[in-house]
């Protein structure tokens, strides 16, 4: 008998329309097993953010239409939900911009994130303490306004928040953006840490082929809203995957 609680992410025929006219995501199909990480490589305008947002919910005020024949996480429907409902299902998205509350301190950011921790009081403080321990950078900056943190520190704060939330579906939108290579190692480690918590399905969308091939077991290419089949890692080395990504820009109109 199939255990629905851990079937992972399953998407068929997902399309996203803006203003009823622009199709940003075109008939995407994807399978990600629970406990594994899937990578999506795409350049600017390919639709990475839209794809991840489709799975984590749009606010009521945006003119967006999401259609799919199937989009489920562990058997529960994901498509067309509000961000709040998606969050209830255990969806955690670390966005490309605005990933932390800039006007709040680091401590206050963690306070907001800790609201999502399930369990009784001692369990919650245990998870909170573990987060501080695993992300030592935050302890030093706990009273500082998050907007004043460096890019790398902000990313770690966002990942710490995701860690505390014990996600079922972790969506990462361009986690490498604007970060120095040395910082990226810490980011990769943090991603692996969160996935290792168990029952976490992870989707990483980025332009940085090195990061994606490092954390993900399967890699797809996203081009103008269309998703490729998984790239054959046995045939293609990581360097070749990177050049495939660059080549994907050739002959493509820029998305608005």
């Amino acid at each position, binding site marked *: 008998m199939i255990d629905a609680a851990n079937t992972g992410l399953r998407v068929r025929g997902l399309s996203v329309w803006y203003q009823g006219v622009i199709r940003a995501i075109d008939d995407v199909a994807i399978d990600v097993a629970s406990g594994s990480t899937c990578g999506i490589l795409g350049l600017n305008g390919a639709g990475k953010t839209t794809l991840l947002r489709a799975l*984590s*919910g749009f606010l009521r005020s945006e003119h967006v239409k999401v259609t799919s024949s199937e989009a489920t996480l562990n058997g529960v429907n994901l498509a067309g939900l*509000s961000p709040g409902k998606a*969050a209830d299902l255990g969806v*955690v*998205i670390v*966005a490309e911009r605005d990933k932390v*509350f800039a006007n709040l301190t680091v401590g206050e950011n963690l306070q907001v994130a800790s609201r*999502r921790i399930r369990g009784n009081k001692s369990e919650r403080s245990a998870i909170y303490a573990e987060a501080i321990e695993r992300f030592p950078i935050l302890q030093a900056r706990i009273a500082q306004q998050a907007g004043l943190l460096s890019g790398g520190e902000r990313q770690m704060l966002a990942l710490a928040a995701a860690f505390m*939330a014990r996600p079922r579906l972790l969506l990462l939108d361009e986690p490498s953006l604007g970060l120095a290579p040395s910082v990226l190692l810490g980011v990769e480690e943090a991603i692996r840490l969160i996935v290792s918590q168990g029952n976490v399905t992870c989707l990483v969308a980025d332009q940085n082929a090195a990061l994606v091939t490092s954390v993900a077991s399967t890699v797809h290419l996203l081009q103008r809203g269309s998703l490729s089949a998984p790239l054959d890692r046995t045939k293609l080395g990581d360097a070749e995957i990177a050049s495939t990504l660059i080549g994907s820009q050739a002959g493509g109109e820029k998305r608005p």
Partner: protein
Amino acid sequence: MTTPLLVQILVQTLIYASIYSLFGLGYVLIYRASRVFNFAIAEMGLFCALLFTTCFVAFGLVWAIVLTVIGSLALGAALYLGIFSRLVGQEEWSQMIVSFALSIALLAVCGLIWGTEIRNIDVPGEKDKLFHIPGHVTLTVTDVVLIVSGFAIWGVLAWATTLSRLGVYMRATAENPLLAAQQGLPVTLIICTAWGVGSLVSAVASVSYGIRLQVDPTMILLGLVAVPAALLGGLDSVFGKLPGAIILGAAQATAAAFFGAAAGDVVAFATLLVVLLVLPHGLFGSKLIRRV
């Protein structure tokens, strides 16, 4: 300046300051939550004060307080859910216009429901003189209770909406509703809370004024003169409201003492004009970030 005059100005400043800081808190909360400068706050306060008057006459003081508190919270939430939640995403000034229009309609509705004659709220202790300088200032027990409780309520609510856990959630939601929703915060509920509390503080200020003096439509001028106080302290600063209210109250009280009440109102606005020209974001305001 003679001592009685000084005392009069001091007392008047405290009275104004307690009212303006309350209205100011209302403006800030609603602005932070929805990016709406709610010009209808004064009229919302009038509505609640009239409600209080009716309940007071019918059910007595305690029930009047309970019902008005509930009513003001409900009014704030209803206005948000009914009107302003539909305007999300529109530019600030267009939402400002809606609040202007709402203020006009709400004032008229108050007149239609309750009529426009002056009402008095006769609370026990209102006539007990505590402090009296002939020709200048008379303070009764009620006055003191109202002033002190005004500041106290302001303090409690200011803390609750900023530094407490709820306050952190409210500030997070105000800064980025999408991120807040993604992190599982009940965004609509939090914004309704902000509107509800905003309505509540204006109710407190208006009822307080109504008890001390009288309840009638011209009372809305209070909420309007509170605008300079709110902006003076910086639009997104909760704690800046107090110094802003005191400064403005002092300016107004001084002008009123020497030139009469009407001059007081004008001085309040003129003070704002001067301050804005020097400090375009008020004393404690951070630069407004325009969300694209």
